[in-house]
């Protein structure tokens, strides 16, 4: 180009180049840090497994009680091939998903109900306090007597763990909505149901979504305890069974599978949360 740059132009171009350079350096540094964290994380896991394997093979620990990784992985692979795993996994995941969804739904529903009627909220208050302070799994035997030893009792145990805490958290977020938002709707003559649909619910939606994350974990607690108590199928059952027959490879591999599946479920919820709240 023949056009001559003015001195001002030139210096502003170099300035811009400097800025791009600084930004690029920042990105490179970030990337380096991320990789370093990931490799240390993997390293720790690997070291742990190697140490465990050695300890097992060299009989530093009682193999009968603690097993070791290669044994556990072998066991899992065999179960996958024989197809035995899928039945147990299906039952447990089914119970967890049903308990999780139903618990969240009922808990939110109950929160809506007591928001709707402050009178009902006052009446129910002591019951909620007692039930919330209670270790819910202690009610397990009662549920088995009422619902029979099986799927229903396990789901109900799960619900008892999830519902009240969901209700408390969601109701709390309902009451924390800025009263002035409600006032805006009221000035237009909005009804109570409009106040709920147009303000309270959308305003608390992020809080409701974040209870989902807590509830995934709680659902697993409910289901595994439920299975400890009554099941003839499921991962919780495998743990108890393995414990009773002193097959700790079975116990450990069940724990491993639970860890993997529970993490996957949690990540699904996190993914959903990001999708649903993307406009923020």
């Amino acid at each position, binding site marked *: 180009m023949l056009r001559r740059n003015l001195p001002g132009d030139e210096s502003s171009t170099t300035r811009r180049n400097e800025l791009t350079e600084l930004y690029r350096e920042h990105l490179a540094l970030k990337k380096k840090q991320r990789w370093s964290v990931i490799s240390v994380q993997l390293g720790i896991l690997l070291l742990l497994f190697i140490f465990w394997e050695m300890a097992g093979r060299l009989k530093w620990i009682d193999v009968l009680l603690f097993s070791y990784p290669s044994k556990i992985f072998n066991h899992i692979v065999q179960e996958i091939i024989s197809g035995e795993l899928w039945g147990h996994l299906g039952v447990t995941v089914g119970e967890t998903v049903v308990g999780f969804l139903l618990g969240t739904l009922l808990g939110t529903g109950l929160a809506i109900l007591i928001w709707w009627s402050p009178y009902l909220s006052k009446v129910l208050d002591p019951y909620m306090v007692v039930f919330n302070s209670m270790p819910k799994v202690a009610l397990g035997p009662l549920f088995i007597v009422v619902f029979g030893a099986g799927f229903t009792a396990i789901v109900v145990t799960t619900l008892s763990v999830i519902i009240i805490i969901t209700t408390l958290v969601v109701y709390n977020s309902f009451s924390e909505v*800025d009263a002035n938002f409600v*006032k805006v709707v009221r000035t237009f003559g909005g009804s109570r149901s409009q106040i709920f649909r147009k303000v309270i619910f*959308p305003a608390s939606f992020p809080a409701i979504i974040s209870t989902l994350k807590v509830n995934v974990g709680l659902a697993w607690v409910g289901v595994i305890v439920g299975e400890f108590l009554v099941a003839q199928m499921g991962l919780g059952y495998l743990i108890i069974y393995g414990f009773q027959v002193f097959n700790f490879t079975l116990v450990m591999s069940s724990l491993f599978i639970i860890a993997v599946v529970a993490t996957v479920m949690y990540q699904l919820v996190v993914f959903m949360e990001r999708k649903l709240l993307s406009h*923020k």
Partner: protein
Amino acid sequence: MVPVVELNDVAHVYITDREASLAVDRLQLTVSAGEFVSLVGPSGCGKTTILSIIAGLLTPSHGEVLVKGLKLEGPTPEVGYMLQQDYLFPWRTILNNALLGLELTGRITPESTAITSGLLEEMGLQGKENIYPHQLSGGMRQRVALVRTLATDPGLLLLDEPFSALDYQTKLQLEDLISRTLRERNKTAVLVTHDLSEAIAMSDRIILLGSNPGRIRRMFDVPRNIREVLPFHARDQEGFQDLFHEIWSAMEKTSDQE
């Protein structure tokens, strides 16, 4: 002509677990069509209570409120209310925020939506319809709130210190905008404010309230030359300072009495 608002011997008592307290008492007030009235007074004089009563959000303990000659039973589309802050819903787009009133009163049509869109454009918000409130400045948000209030086409607007949360420059701009908009559409307005010069610059009539309980102390008519220009220039008009000092000393006197 029927006045737009009429308060007949209105009193209101707030009852809490601790006590019952008289917030406003023996209010007698008429606002005629197209008039712009300001309520000023010390804090605790029940300004917001009066607005809430006219908006139909509070039912007065005593007396009656007539809007266009009809006894007020609750919020009506005839009365629009603008709050101290915009309170736009963060999860709604600008257009959907502006349409809230129409939505709540079941009056969303392609025509009413187009009119609201046009209003947004008139307020300098063209191209902002599909973004979210947090992407706008405070002044712009308050303009969206104004459109939200105007969209349902109320005859009377209640303005509850709508400029108090804004910086000075934005506040002056918005005063002019609101003043012009209301005048063009021949709306009636009641403004509550702490700012005496704002009250004088914007209104036709100023009502001075005393506190504990809130009562009307005095009324001041704003001279024609101040009324006829926009608020920004009203401040330079002859007689502005005199009126300011007159209301100021009257206010001092009422607070001395209490």
